[in-house]
């Protein structure tokens, strides 16, 4: 037994993190700015990217020159935001997702280190951009929003103190399509963060219904479903998995949704699959799932694939690794199972990001799933998270990703096989058109197979 054996086997890849990142607000840092610490933080950020960014040519940028041009300004900075602005300039010049800096005061608030109550709350609504407007895209059954009469298809004008119009104007002003799409995603995330982040938050939603009538609905956030999960240095996140059986005369089609790629997903999926395993088709709903721990791709895909095939490759400066399916032949409870073999539809939208995109692209490319919904976020690069000397959280890209067909997902996103963009008319009717299409496909051929007297459950 040597130290070598011990290190060899640490599954480092699983530590890679990939997430679009939700936003939150916190009181400004009241501490006096420490210029030396600020400069050390800038230097650390630059050095970490310098040492680990997958492209040693830095996309053609003079990386050393960029540091040298920014550093004097950082040395003169009187406020932490000036230093952070310089770090964000590094990010902007590389122009890729998964670069992020979270000020220490916000990171503390998100961690619950502050005096702010940190029980996660929700009013039960989701927002999306539809035809250039922000609309209520989902209302959770039984939520305070549903009880207050909020309905799908309402055009949102204000959430809490956040007015939508100026945010939309800023987003529309962007010429670059990728930047505009990312801005739209951040806009929606900001609004969702304003819609009751904590239990007991009072939120007023101002929106117009289908008839143009303006509603101002004040609601108090209730406890968010799921469990609070802490991963590495990241702020805690609420993990939630839901599942349902859509029964019909021919049996059932299953539906499973989880909101983030966090570690409880495997045992939670064990339980969910137990309840839908007999269904002839399954819809895996990754809408709004911003990503998480990329290593989970290998475990989650194993619920649906019975061979150790690659879902894509991760290329860093040092190595190329494959995200291999680990077929789920035993549950966490130690029971033997067979990976689900029925039809699999994956449902995505512009807020399906990162690990959700890597998974979706991989599962489609290996022929295991058909994808429904709207084009994903295009934020699909493996990243690592660390702290800077001043306590800020720092996320930076360390590898590139290519799907099994060789395509990059970054910037382009995953375009579904069946693109079903949200429409206000269907939202106002209370319909979930993408889900309806996915359910219909997942159940269809299996019904035909059953009618022919063959066993349902063949791969698509």
């Amino acid at each position, binding site marked *: 037994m040597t130290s*070598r054996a011990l290190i060899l086997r640490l599954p480092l890849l699983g530590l890679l993190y990939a997430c679009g990142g939700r936003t939150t607000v916190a009181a400004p840092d009241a501490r006096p700015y420490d210029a030396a610490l600020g400069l050390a933080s800038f230097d650390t950020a630059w050095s970490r990217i310098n040492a680990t960014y997958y492209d040693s040519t830095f996309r053609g940028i003079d990386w050393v020159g960029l540091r040298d041009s920014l550093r004097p300004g950082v040395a003169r900075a009187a406020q932490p935001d000036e230093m952070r602005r310089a770090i964000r300039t590094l990010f902007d010049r590389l122009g890729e997702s998964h670069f992020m800096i979270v000020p220490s005061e916000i990171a503390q608030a998100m961690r619950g280190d502050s005096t702010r109550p940190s029980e996660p709350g929700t009013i039960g609504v989701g927002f999306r951009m539809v035809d250039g407007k922000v609309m209520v895209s989902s209302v959770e059954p039984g939520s305070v929003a549903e009880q207050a009469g909020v309905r799908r298809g309402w055009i949102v004008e204000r959430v809490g103190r956040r007015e939508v119009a100026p945010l939309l104007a800023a987003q529309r002003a962007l010429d670059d399509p990728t930047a505009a799409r990312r801005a739209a995603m951040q806009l929606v995330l900001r609004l969702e963060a304003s819609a009751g982040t904590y239990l007991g938050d009072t939120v007023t939603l101002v929106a117009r219904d289908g008839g143009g009538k303006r509603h101002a609905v004040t609601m108090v956030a209730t406890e968010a479903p799921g469990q609070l999960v802490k991963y590495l240095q990241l702020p805690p996140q609420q993990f939630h998995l839901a599942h349902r059986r859509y029964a019909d005369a021919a049996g059932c089609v299953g539906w499973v949704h989880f909101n983030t790629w966090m*570690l409880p997903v495997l045992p939670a999926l064990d339980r969910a699959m137990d309840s839908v395993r007999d269904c002839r088709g399954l819809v895996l709903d990754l809408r709004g799932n911003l990503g998480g721990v990329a290593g989970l791709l290998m*475990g989650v895909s194993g619920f649906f694939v019975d061979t150790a095939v690659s879902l894509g490759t991760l290329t860093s400066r040092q190595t190329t690794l494959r995200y291999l399916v680990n077929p789920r*032949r035993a549950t966490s409870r130690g029971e033997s199972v067979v990976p689900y073999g029925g039809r699999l539809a994956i449902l995505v939208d512009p807020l399906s990001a990162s690990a959700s995109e890597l998974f979706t692209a991989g599962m489609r490319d290996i022929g295991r799933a058909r994808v429904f919904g709207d084009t994903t976020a295009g934020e699909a690069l493996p990243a690592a998270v660390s702290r800077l000397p001043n306590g800020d959280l720092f996320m930076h890209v360390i590898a590139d990703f290519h799907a099994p067909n060789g395509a990059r997902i970054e910037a382009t996103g995953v375009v579904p096989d069946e693109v079903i963009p949200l429409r206000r008319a269907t939202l106002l009717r209370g319909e979930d058109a993408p889900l309806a299409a996915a359910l219909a496909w997942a159940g269809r051929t299996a019904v035909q197979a059953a009618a022919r007297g063959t066993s349902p459950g063949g791969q698509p």
Partner: protein
Amino acid sequence: MKTRSLVVLAGMSLLPVTGSAQLPAAKDLIQKWATAVNASGWKGHKSARMVATVDLPAMGMSAKTEAIQMYAPAMSIQKTDFPGMGEMRMGFDGKTAWMTNPMMGASIVPDSLLGAQREEADPDNYSRMSAAITSSETIEKTKLNDTECYKVKHTWKSGRVTHDCFSVADGYIVWSQSKATSPMGEVEMVQMFSAYKDYGGVKRATTTSTEQAGQQIIITLQSWEWDTVDPKEFELPADVKALVTKKP
């Protein structure tokens, strides 16, 4: 003059030492090392238990890890518990290697990788005099920061190639270079060893700093015990047992 490599790792520079002085034979370096650390000290024991801490400074992660090994029959298990991540376990019973972690669930290591697994499980490998190493060759005198060392290339029965650098001053291994192989692919790995101390009659590096996939991992050995392992400790986790039972 052959091309020499320059490796820069976490602020430490590894530089070739120029000059064409006669290099010592690999077998002499290995013999000196094996004697200095008493590498055969494991013989006469039935099992070993190692406890260490694992730190990933950039990620702010710290974990406790425990590795147990039985020599006859050859069995090993390693458990690492990262707070907020859950326990990772891996084991080898002489025939089957397995692993389980919260990201992938349980899996059996493919037969194609078992050769390296067997080699790692052999306690004799610490001496670098085991039968698993088919050849060793001194290839250069080099320098890690201020420490001069002789770089030796080992070729193993399984076909893998590793390198050790033996300190010119005291004969200890100061760094090693190898590839970590998994079904996902290979990762180049460089380990730096320091603070050799006596653990149960065998000298081992208290601190091992590893660069792997762009991450630094620091392992600090806490304790080493002989013959305290209960065979029951090798009982398989339930999910692995389900896989092993199904294995044809």
